């Protein structure tokens, strides 16, 4: 197989070089990776993910968390929770990994144009939403008000703290952050992410909502959005299951009639609402 043919094969990893590993929180790191081939290969839609291969260890699906306008590199925010992710965040600059993708559907950025964009993130769920935030801020005139509601476990587990502060200073942008446990030295909100809705003052008739976080949190948030008047048709969720092939062959991530890797990970809430209510799915 030629190199060009290999690039087209979704099952063959392309070599990438780790350029930077930055620690975000005690167990979460952001890796910057450049591919050794064409720049165009780095193009992605906000919400998509890659399969990252640690040679001799394994492969994991990781959402792309960087700026979609920057095609020189790919950025991934990784929480170290298992053997493969531990290996991934232990990489030093200059080391190689394999990359497949980008895969999956993205956030509905076209549908969001001209509308109030409500982004609700929990924990590391902010990572797949960050490209959507960049997209809105890069094309500010195309979108309405940007509302970011972000909840994390504690202040030290907040991602992208400097960026949160910078985004809050942008025009027509509201950033509200809360933590479940405040601790010493924290003067911000304490409480779950749904408590932020009271201060958000949404314009539900013109809002489009994008949610990512633990599934329980997303269920609470969809209920709250409904109470605020945001329709299920204007609500989108990023789902997570055991993705392995990333192209809908293996069936590991089957979710009812859908494959999360191929038909998701971003789904309109209206499409998957009945599945979210099914136990043991």
């Amino acid at each position, binding site marked *: 197989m030629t190199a060009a043919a290999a690039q087209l094969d979704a099952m063959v990893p392309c070599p990438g070089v780790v350029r930077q590993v930055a620690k975000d929180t005690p*167990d979460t790191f952001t890796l910057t990776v450049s591919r050794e081939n064409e720049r165009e290969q780095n193009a992605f839609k906000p919400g998509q993910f890659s399969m990252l291969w640690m040679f001799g260890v394994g492969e994991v699906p990781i959402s792309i968390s960087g700026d979609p306008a920057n095609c020189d590199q790919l950025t991934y925010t990784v*929480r170290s*929770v*298992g053997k493969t992710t531990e290996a991934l965040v232990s990489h030093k600059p200059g080391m190689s990994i394999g990359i497949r993708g980008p895969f999956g559907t993205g956030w509905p950025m076209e549908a969001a144009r001209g509308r109030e964009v409500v982004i609700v993130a*929990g*924990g*590391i769920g902010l990572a797949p939403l960050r490209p959507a935030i960049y997209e809105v801020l890069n094309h500010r005139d195309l979108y309405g008000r940007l509302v970011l509601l972000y*909840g*994390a*476990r504690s202040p030290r*587990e907040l991602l992208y703290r400097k960026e949160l502060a910078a985004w809050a200073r942008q025009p027509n942008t509201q950033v509200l952050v*809360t933590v*479940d446990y*405040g601790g*010493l030295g*924290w*003067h*911000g*909100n*304490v*409480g*779950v992410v*749904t*408590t932020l809705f*009271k*201060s958000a003052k949404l314009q539900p008739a013109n809002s489009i909502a994008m949610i990512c*976080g*633990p599934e*329980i*949190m997303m269920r*609470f948030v969809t209920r709250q959005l409904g109470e605020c008047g945001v329709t299920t048709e204007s609500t989108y969720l990023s789902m997570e299951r055991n993705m392995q092939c990333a192209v809908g062959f293996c069936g590991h991530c089957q979710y009812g009639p859908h494959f999360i890797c191929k038909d998701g990970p971003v789904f309109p809430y209206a499409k998957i609402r009945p599945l979210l209510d099914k136990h043991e799915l």
Partner: protein
Amino acid sequence: METLERIIQEHPFFAGLGDEFMDLVSGCASNVRFAKDAYIFREGQAANTFYLVREGNVSLEIYAPQRKPIVVATVGVGEVLGWSWLLPPYEWKFNAHATANTRAIALDGKCLREKCEKNHDLGYEFLKRFAQIVVNRLEATRFQLLDVYSAQK
């Protein structure tokens, strides 16, 4: 200039409250300000007031020996602070600490309790509204206890 009646009427907590009750409520209301770091009330004190926060932020704290207070929740603009005034023993269970300069409408709970005893329709309106706040806080607390962001290895 906004009158107290107008501010109370427009507050989400009183949405839909009949005009016949507004005078009764307004008669128990006053404007209050708290400087940053002031304590609005403290655990164990008599609870005879509740507040509609108009500006600023308030931390609900619990005292722990030999350490700084633990913040269990924050109450912000548009929210209601305090429900211990409504039910015996009328004692605050937490400290309320203004973490920013805070403006609020204070409602005299003692005065309202008496009015609610005399006018059960008003009492029912208050109980319905506070029950909703209590339910919301209970759900939020359960959600908080789930610790959904913790790593699942």
